[in-house]
Protein backbone atom coordinates (compact mmCIF):
# COMPACT_ATOMS: atom_id res chain seq x y z
CA UNK A 1 0.00 0.00 0.00
CA UNK A 2 1.55 3.32 -1.03
CA UNK A 3 1.96 6.07 1.50
CA UNK A 4 0.71 9.63 1.00
CA UNK A 5 2.99 11.99 -0.89
CA UNK A 6 4.36 15.21 0.48
CA UNK A 7 6.00 18.15 -1.24
CA UNK A 8 9.08 20.01 -0.08
CA UNK A 9 9.89 22.82 -2.47
CA UNK A 10 9.82 21.27 -5.93
CA UNK A 11 10.40 17.74 -4.64
CA UNK A 12 7.36 15.50 -4.41
CA UNK A 13 7.89 12.15 -2.77
CA UNK A 14 6.22 9.45 -0.79
CA UNK A 15 6.37 9.75 2.99
CA UNK A 16 9.16 7.90 4.70
CA UNK A 17 8.19 5.25 7.23
CA UNK A 18 8.89 7.66 10.07
CA UNK A 19 6.86 10.44 8.48
CA UNK A 20 3.99 8.03 7.82
CA UNK A 21 4.03 6.83 11.43
CA UNK A 22 3.85 10.42 12.67
CA UNK A 23 1.07 11.12 10.14
CA UNK A 24 -0.94 8.12 11.33
CA UNK A 25 -0.49 9.15 14.93
CA UNK A 26 -1.68 12.66 14.15
CA UNK A 27 -4.78 11.30 12.40
CA UNK A 28 -5.53 9.04 15.34
CA UNK A 29 -5.20 11.93 17.81
CA UNK A 30 -7.07 14.49 15.73
CA UNK A 31 -10.21 15.36 17.69
CA UNK A 32 -11.11 18.37 15.58
CA UNK A 33 -14.47 17.73 13.91
CA UNK A 34 -14.59 17.83 10.14
CA UNK A 35 -16.37 20.68 8.42
CA UNK A 36 -19.88 19.64 7.39
CA UNK A 37 -20.51 20.26 3.72
CA UNK A 38 -23.66 22.03 2.69
CA UNK A 39 -25.09 21.60 -0.76
CA UNK A 40 -23.79 24.38 -2.95
CA UNK A 41 -25.44 23.19 -6.15
CA UNK A 42 -27.56 25.89 -7.74
CA UNK A 43 -31.14 24.85 -8.33
CA UNK A 44 -31.65 24.05 -11.99
CA UNK A 45 -33.92 26.29 -14.05
CA UNK A 46 -37.51 25.03 -14.15
CA UNK A 47 -38.38 23.04 -17.23
CA UNK A 48 -40.43 24.79 -19.83
CA UNK A 49 -43.94 23.37 -19.42
CA UNK A 50 -45.44 21.56 -22.38
CA UNK A 51 -48.02 23.67 -24.17
CA UNK A 52 -51.56 22.54 -23.48
CA UNK A 53 -54.25 22.19 -26.10
Amino acid at each position, binding site marked *: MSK*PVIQIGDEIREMTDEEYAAYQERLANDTLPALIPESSVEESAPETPEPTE
Partner: protein
Amino acid sequence: MAVKTFGSERLTSTDINTYLTNSGLVYVTSVNVGTGVSSVTVPNAFSATYDAYKIIWTGGTISSLALIFCYMGSSTGTAYYGARSSGNVAGSFVGGGDNNTAYWQFMTAGNTNTAFMEFDLFNPYLATVTSVRSIYSEPNGASSAYGTYGGYVNNTTSYTSFTLDPQSTTTMTGGTITVYGYRKA
Protein backbone atom coordinates in the same frame (compact mmCIF):
# COMPACT_ATOMS: atom_id res chain seq x y z
CA MET B 1 16.10 54.73 2.95
CA ALA B 2 14.06 57.67 1.70
CA VAL B 3 12.05 57.54 -1.49
CA LYS B 4 13.97 59.28 -4.25
CA THR B 5 12.55 61.90 -6.61
CA PHE B 6 14.18 61.58 -10.00
CA GLY B 7 14.99 64.87 -11.74
CA SER B 8 16.94 63.53 -14.66
CA GLU B 9 15.80 61.82 -17.84
CA ARG B 10 18.53 59.24 -17.33
CA LEU B 11 18.26 56.59 -14.62
CA THR B 12 21.40 54.82 -13.51
CA SER B 13 21.41 51.08 -12.98
CA THR B 14 22.21 51.68 -9.33
CA ASP B 15 19.14 53.86 -8.86
CA ILE B 16 16.96 51.42 -10.75
CA ASN B 17 18.15 48.48 -8.67
CA THR B 18 17.78 50.41 -5.44
CA TYR B 19 14.54 52.27 -5.88
CA LEU B 20 12.52 50.77 -8.70
CA THR B 21 12.97 47.03 -8.40
CA ASN B 22 13.04 46.95 -4.63
CA SER B 23 9.42 47.83 -3.95
CA GLY B 24 7.50 47.66 -0.66
CA LEU B 25 6.36 44.08 -1.16
CA VAL B 26 9.19 42.05 -2.64
CA TYR B 27 8.98 38.59 -4.20
CA VAL B 28 11.04 36.05 -2.25
CA THR B 29 10.17 32.58 -3.50
CA SER B 30 7.36 30.43 -4.80
CA VAL B 31 6.35 26.79 -5.05
CA ASN B 32 4.01 25.26 -7.62
CA VAL B 33 1.81 22.80 -5.78
CA GLY B 34 1.71 19.32 -7.24
CA THR B 35 -1.22 16.92 -7.51
CA GLY B 36 -2.70 15.23 -4.47
CA VAL B 37 0.02 16.16 -2.01
CA SER B 38 -0.65 15.63 1.67
CA SER B 39 1.33 18.74 2.61
CA VAL B 40 3.57 21.36 1.06
CA THR B 41 6.68 22.76 2.75
CA VAL B 42 8.08 25.99 1.34
CA PRO B 43 11.84 26.04 2.03
CA ASN B 44 14.12 29.07 2.01
CA ALA B 45 11.17 31.35 2.66
CA PHE B 46 12.54 33.44 5.50
CA SER B 47 15.84 35.21 6.11
CA ALA B 48 17.33 38.21 7.81
CA THR B 49 16.36 40.37 4.82
CA TYR B 50 12.78 40.76 6.05
CA ASP B 51 10.99 40.65 9.38
CA ALA B 52 7.47 40.37 7.96
CA TYR B 53 6.14 38.29 5.10
CA LYS B 54 2.97 37.86 3.09
CA ILE B 55 2.16 34.38 1.80
CA ILE B 56 -0.44 33.77 -0.86
CA TRP B 57 -1.65 30.45 -2.26
CA THR B 58 -3.96 30.82 -5.22
CA GLY B 59 -5.14 28.71 -8.12
CA GLY B 60 -5.43 25.47 -6.21
CA THR B 61 -7.99 23.18 -4.65
CA ILE B 62 -8.16 20.59 -1.92
CA SER B 63 -9.65 17.13 -2.19
CA SER B 64 -12.55 17.74 0.21
CA LEU B 65 -14.07 20.50 2.32
CA ALA B 66 -11.55 20.94 5.12
CA LEU B 67 -9.53 23.29 7.22
CA ILE B 68 -6.01 24.01 6.05
CA PHE B 69 -3.47 23.76 8.83
CA CYS B 70 -0.17 25.59 8.96
CA TYR B 71 2.98 25.08 10.98
CA MET B 72 6.40 26.60 11.02
CA GLY B 73 9.24 24.51 9.67
CA SER B 74 8.61 21.09 8.17
CA SER B 75 7.07 19.27 11.12
CA THR B 76 4.35 19.88 13.63
CA GLY B 77 5.28 21.23 17.03
CA THR B 78 3.77 22.57 20.20
CA ALA B 79 2.57 25.81 21.76
CA TYR B 80 0.56 27.09 18.82
CA TYR B 81 -2.12 29.57 19.87
CA GLY B 82 -4.70 31.43 17.86
CA ALA B 83 -8.33 32.40 17.38
CA ARG B 84 -10.66 32.65 14.44
CA SER B 85 -13.28 35.36 14.30
CA SER B 86 -15.74 34.93 11.47
CA GLY B 87 -19.35 35.39 10.49
CA ASN B 88 -21.40 32.99 8.46
CA VAL B 89 -23.77 33.85 5.64
CA ALA B 90 -26.67 33.72 8.08
CA GLY B 91 -25.09 36.54 10.03
CA SER B 92 -24.01 34.50 13.03
CA PHE B 93 -20.59 34.51 14.70
CA VAL B 94 -18.42 31.47 14.12
CA GLY B 95 -15.37 31.08 16.28
CA GLY B 96 -12.60 28.59 16.76
CA GLY B 97 -9.40 28.53 18.73
CA ASP B 98 -6.02 26.89 19.00
CA ASN B 99 -4.93 26.51 22.59
CA ASN B 100 -1.45 25.01 22.82
CA THR B 101 -1.92 22.91 19.71
CA ALA B 102 0.62 21.31 17.39
CA TYR B 103 -0.14 23.74 14.56
CA TRP B 104 -2.49 26.57 13.60
CA GLN B 105 -5.77 24.89 12.73
CA PHE B 106 -8.21 27.65 11.92
CA MET B 107 -6.35 29.89 9.50
CA THR B 108 -8.64 29.06 6.59
CA ALA B 109 -10.53 26.35 4.75
CA GLY B 110 -11.17 25.23 1.18
CA ASN B 111 -13.16 22.78 -0.88
CA THR B 112 -12.91 20.79 -4.08
CA ASN B 113 -13.71 23.84 -6.19
CA THR B 114 -11.69 26.54 -4.52
CA ALA B 115 -8.95 26.98 -1.98
CA PHE B 116 -6.68 29.89 -1.30
CA MET B 117 -4.65 31.33 1.51
CA GLU B 118 -3.54 34.83 2.33
CA PHE B 119 -1.66 35.36 5.55
CA ASP B 120 1.11 37.44 7.06
CA LEU B 121 3.88 36.08 9.24
CA PHE B 122 5.77 38.32 11.62
CA ASN B 123 9.32 37.62 12.79
CA PRO B 124 9.57 34.02 11.57
CA TYR B 125 13.34 34.22 11.04
CA LEU B 126 14.15 36.16 14.19
CA ALA B 127 14.84 34.30 17.42
CA THR B 128 11.59 35.49 18.91
CA VAL B 129 7.91 34.63 18.88
CA THR B 130 6.43 34.19 15.40
CA SER B 131 2.96 35.64 14.90
CA VAL B 132 0.40 35.13 12.14
CA ARG B 133 -2.61 36.94 10.77
CA SER B 134 -4.76 35.25 8.15
CA ILE B 135 -7.86 35.69 6.08
CA TYR B 136 -10.38 33.00 7.03
CA SER B 137 -12.40 31.69 4.11
CA GLU B 138 -14.74 28.71 4.30
CA PRO B 139 -16.61 28.17 1.02
CA ASN B 140 -19.46 25.98 2.18
CA GLY B 141 -22.74 27.02 0.62
CA ALA B 142 -25.30 28.00 3.23
CA SER B 143 -22.71 27.37 5.94
CA SER B 144 -20.00 29.57 4.41
CA ALA B 145 -18.07 31.70 6.84
CA TYR B 146 -15.52 34.48 6.40
CA GLY B 147 -13.35 36.44 8.78
CA THR B 148 -9.86 36.61 10.19
CA TYR B 149 -7.47 34.58 12.26
CA GLY B 150 -4.66 35.70 14.53
CA GLY B 151 -2.17 33.67 16.45
CA TYR B 152 1.39 32.93 17.47
CA VAL B 153 3.71 30.06 18.28
CA ASN B 154 5.22 30.42 21.70
CA ASN B 155 8.90 29.77 21.13
CA THR B 156 11.99 31.67 20.02
CA THR B 157 12.90 29.42 17.12
CA SER B 158 14.30 30.95 13.95
CA TYR B 159 12.44 29.46 11.00
CA THR B 160 13.37 29.40 7.33
CA SER B 161 10.35 27.44 6.10
CA PHE B 162 6.68 26.73 6.75
CA THR B 163 4.20 24.01 5.82
CA LEU B 164 0.59 23.98 4.65
CA ASP B 165 -1.21 20.76 5.55
CA PRO B 166 -4.96 20.22 5.07
CA GLN B 167 -6.98 18.55 7.79
CA SER B 168 -7.16 14.78 8.05
CA THR B 169 -6.38 12.91 4.81
CA THR B 170 -7.30 15.86 2.58
CA THR B 171 -4.73 16.70 -0.10
CA MET B 172 -3.73 19.82 -2.02
CA THR B 173 -3.59 20.16 -5.78
CA GLY B 174 -2.34 22.91 -8.00
CA GLY B 175 -1.85 26.61 -7.72
CA THR B 176 1.21 28.48 -6.53
CA ILE B 177 2.34 29.41 -3.07
CA THR B 178 4.19 32.73 -3.24
CA VAL B 179 6.18 34.37 -0.46
CA TYR B 180 6.68 38.12 -0.41
CA GLY B 181 8.79 40.12 2.04
CA TYR B 182 7.75 43.50 3.43
CA ARG B 183 10.75 45.66 2.56
CA LYS B 184 12.53 47.33 5.42
CA ALA B 185 14.06 50.79 5.19
